[in-house]
C-alpha cells in the first residue's frame, strides 16, 4: 500500500477510498491537536512548576483568545458536515443505485448464519413466511409461490459479479445482527420485523469477510461469511451451477423442465 494508511484493511469498494481519506484527515487533525496541546501542557508543567520565590499569577489574560480553539473546532466540524457528511451519507445510505443495473440479493440473518436469497432467472424473489421455516428451509421460502421456483439460496457465501453494484435488502429472523464487510467500509444493522438496505460496488475480484457487528448471542463470535466477487463469467457459471443443483433436488412432482444451457 502506498504510504501510511492508519492500519486500515485494503479498500475494496467504490466509496472506501473516500471514507479512508476522511479517516486519515480526521486522524491527522486529531494528532495535530493533541501534539499542540501536549507541547503546551508539558511547557506549562516545566515553566510553571513550584519553586522558591515563585507565586501564581492572580490576574488572567487572554480570556477571549481562549475561545479561539473552540471556534476553530466548531468551524472545522461545520465544514466536515457540509463538505463530507451530507453528500456522503446521502450517497452511501440514502441513494441506492438503480436496481435494474445492480445485483439485488435478499439477506435473512439468523443466529448464527447469513442466508442469501437470489431471485434467479425470473428476476423475482419468492415469498418467504415465518411459518415455513424449518431446518432444511431456513428462510422459510414458500415453494408454492411460482416466483420461488428458481430462487437460489446460499448460506454464508455471497457471490456477486464484478462490474455492477450489489444491493442487499436485509432482515433478520430473530435478533438484531449487523452485516459488515470491513474491506468495503460499510455495515448496517439487520433488524427483525423490518427491511434495511446496504449497497456496495466492489473494485476487484476476491474474497471479503463478512463479520456480524451487533452482539447476537453466544455464537456472535463465529458468525462470519464471505462476499465472493467473481468475474461476470465466473459468476454466470456459478449461477448456472446453483440453478442446476436446485432443479436436481426438486421433487419429481413439481419439476418444470428448466432449459439448461449447454456449456460450450
Amino acid at each position, binding site marked *: 500500500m502506498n504510504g501510511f494508511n492508519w492500519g486500515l484493511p485494503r479498500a475494496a469498494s467504490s466509496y472506501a477510498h473516500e471514507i479512508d481519506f476522511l479517516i486519515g484527515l480526521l486522524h491527522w487533525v486529531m494528532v495535530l491537536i493533541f501534539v499542540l496541546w501536549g507541547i503546551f501542557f508539558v511547557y506549562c508543567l516545566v515553566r*510553571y512548576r513550584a519553586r522558591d520565590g515563585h507565586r*501564581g499569577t492572580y490576574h488572567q489574560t*487572554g480570556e477571549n483568545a481562549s475561545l479561539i480553539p473552540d471556534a476553530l473546532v466548531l468551524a472545522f466540524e461545520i465544514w466536515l458536515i457540509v463538505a463530507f457528511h451530507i453528500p456522503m451519507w446521502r450517497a452511501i445510505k440514502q441513494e441506492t443505485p438503480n436496481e435494474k443495473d445492480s445485483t439485488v440479493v435478499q439477506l435473512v440473518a439468523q443466529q448464527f448464519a447469513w442466508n442469501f436469497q437470489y431471485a434467479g432467472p425470473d428476476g423475482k424473489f419468492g415469498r418467504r413466511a415465518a411459518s415455513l421455516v424449518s431446518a432444511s428451509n431456513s428462510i422459510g421460502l414458500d415453494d408454492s409461490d411460482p416466483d420461488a421456483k428458481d430462487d437460489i439460496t446460499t448460506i454464508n457465501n455471497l457471490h456477486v459479479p464484478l462490474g455492477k453494484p450489489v444491493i442487499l435488502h436485509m432482515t433478520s429472523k430473530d435478533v438484531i445482527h449487523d452485516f459488515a464487510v470491513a474491506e468495503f467500509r460499510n455495515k448496517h444493522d439487520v433488524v427483525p420485523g423490518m427491511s434495511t438496505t446496504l449497497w456496495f460496488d466492489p473494485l476487484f475480484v476476491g474474497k471479503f469477510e463478512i463479520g456480524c457487528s451487533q452482539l447476537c448471542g453466544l455464537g456472535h463470535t463465529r458468525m462470519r461469511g464471505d462476499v465472493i466477487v467473481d468475474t461476470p463469467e465466473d459468476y454466470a457459471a456459478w449461477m448456472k451451477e446453483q440453478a442446476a443443483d436446485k432443479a436436481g433436488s426438486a421433487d419429481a412432482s413439481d419439476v418444470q423442465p428448466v432449459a439448461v444451457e449447454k456449456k460450450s
Partner: protein
Amino acid sequence: MTSEHGHGEQKFIWKYVFSVDHKTIGIQYLVTSFTFLFVGLCMMLLMRWQLAQPDQPFPVIGDLLAKILGDDKMPTGVMLPEFYNQLGAMHGTIMIFLGVVPLGVGAFGNFVLPLQIGAPDMAFPRLNMMSYWIYLVGGFVMLSSFLFPGGAAQSGWTSYAPLSVIAPPGQTVWCVAMVIIITSSLFGAINFIVTTLNMRAPGMTWSRLPVFVWAQLVTAVLLLLAFPVLEAGALLQLLDRVAGTSFYIPKDLVVGATVFPRAGGGNPILWQHLFWFLAHPEVYVLLLPAMGIVAEIIATNTRKPLFGYREMVGSMCLIGVLSFVVWAHHMFLSGMRTSLANLFVTTTLTISVPSVAILTCLLLSLRGGSIRFNTPMLFALAFLPMFGIGGLTGLPLGFAPTDLHLHDTYYVIGHFHYVVAPGSLIALMGGLYYWYPKMFGRQMNRTLGKIHFWLTIIGMNGVFFPMFIQGMAGMQRRLADPTAQTHNLPVQWWSIPMGISAAIIFIGQFPFIFNFFMSLRNGEKVGENPWEATTLEWACPSPPPHGNFVKTPEVHRGPYEYSVPGRKEDYWPQDEAA
C-alpha cells in the same frame, strides 16, 4: 443551620450503619463503589485472558475457577462464549452503574458538596441514607444474576432487544436490579438539587460556587430527567420477558426453528431510543463530577484562580442541555431514518465544543501557576491528555461517514474507555487522594500513591491504546474469540501486551488498597487545611463533626482566590473575614 441537634450519643447502628450524616454515607458509597470497581476489574482480567489466548484454560487458578463457577461457565477452566458475554455485559453494567457513578456522585458528591456550600448536611438526610442502602441492595441483586440458570445478563450492558428479551433469566434480574439502582439515583439527584439550590451558606452566591458543585448540580439534573426514561424502557423489557408483551418484539420472530409465540407488532429500535436517551446523558454523569474534581485539584495546586470560571460553568450547563439531543449518534446504523442522522451528527459535533472549552480552560489554568506535584495533582494532570485522547477519538465516531467503518469495533471501546478509565476514574482516584485527609484526618502515603499512579496510568494506556489499532482493522466488539474471523488475525497479537497491561493495572491497585487502610492508622495527621486551599470544605475540622461547621460560615469571596496581590498568604479562604 448549626451543628446542634436534638439527639445524644447514638448507637453504633444509627451512627455508622444507617447513618443519615452525608459524610458517613459518602464513605459508605466510597468503599462500596471501589469494591464494585474491583469486581469489574477482575471480570475484565478473565476476559482479557480469553482474548489473548482464546479457549485456553485460565492460568494458575483455572481449575479453581472451573470448580467455583461450574460447567455452564468455565468447564475445565476454559471460558464458554456465553460466559464471555455475561462478563462483558456485567463488566459494563457494574463499572458504570455500581462503580463510577456511585463513586463520583454518591461518594464525592455526598461528602464534599454540603461542605463546599457551607451546609450542615443534605436537604433530606434520611432520603440520603435510603439512597445508599437501595444502591447496595441493587448491587447485590445485580450480582446475584450470575447464580441464575443460564447465567447473568449477557446481551451487552446495552441490552438490545430482541436478544435481551429471549435471553436467559439473568436478564430479568438485570431489569429488576436496574429499576432498584435507578430509584437510588433518583432519590440522590433530588437531594443534590434541593441542597444546592436551598442550603448555600450566606454569601455563597452562584458565582462563588466551586466548579465541583456546579458539576454535581448539572449531573443531578441529568440523572433526574434521563434515568426515568430508561426505567420506562426497562419496565417494558421486563414485561416482554415475563408478561408476554411485544413492545420490542416484531411479528413472526423465529428463534431457532420455532416461531416465537407473541402477538408481535413491537419495534426493537424503540428500546434503543429509550435506552440511549438515558445512556447518552449518562456518559456526562460519568464525566462531569470527575471534571469538577480535576478543577478543584488544579486550582489548589497551581496556587492561582482557575482560568475561565464562567466559561467552564457555562460549558457544563450547555453540555447538560445538549446531552439530551445527541443520543441517536449511537444508532446511525440501526435502521432509523437516515434523515435523523443529519440532525444527530450536527448536535453531536456541537456538543464537542463545550467539552473542548472545558479542557482548554483546565489546560490554561496551568499557565502562570506555581504547580505542586503532589499525588492528587499527578492524577488531575494525567486526566487532561487522557481525556484529550478520549475526546478526540470521539470525532471519527460522531461523524457518521467514518463511523460506517468504526461502529461496533474496538475503536469504540478504546474511545469510551479512554474517557471513563484514564479519564474519569483517574480523576476520581485523584479526588480520593485529595479529600482523604478531610475524610479521615490523615494523609495517604506519597510513595505508594506514586506507585499506584504510574502503574495505573501505564497499564491503562497499554490496554486501551491498541484498541484503536484493532478497531481500524475492523475488529468487532464483544467477540468471545476474535480469531474465529480472519480479518482480526493481523491485530490479534496486540491482545497479549494488552493482557499484560491489564495485569499491571490489577497489580497497581494493591498499593492503593494497602495505602487506604494503612493510612487510616498510620498516616500523617493533618489539621483543617493541609493543602492550603480556599474552598469551604477546608474550613472545618478533619474529619468534620456532625453538622460540619461549628458556626455557619459566611462567604466573602470567590472560590479560587489564590496568590492575591498584596496578601502575605498565597490563598484567601472563602469564609475568612474581609
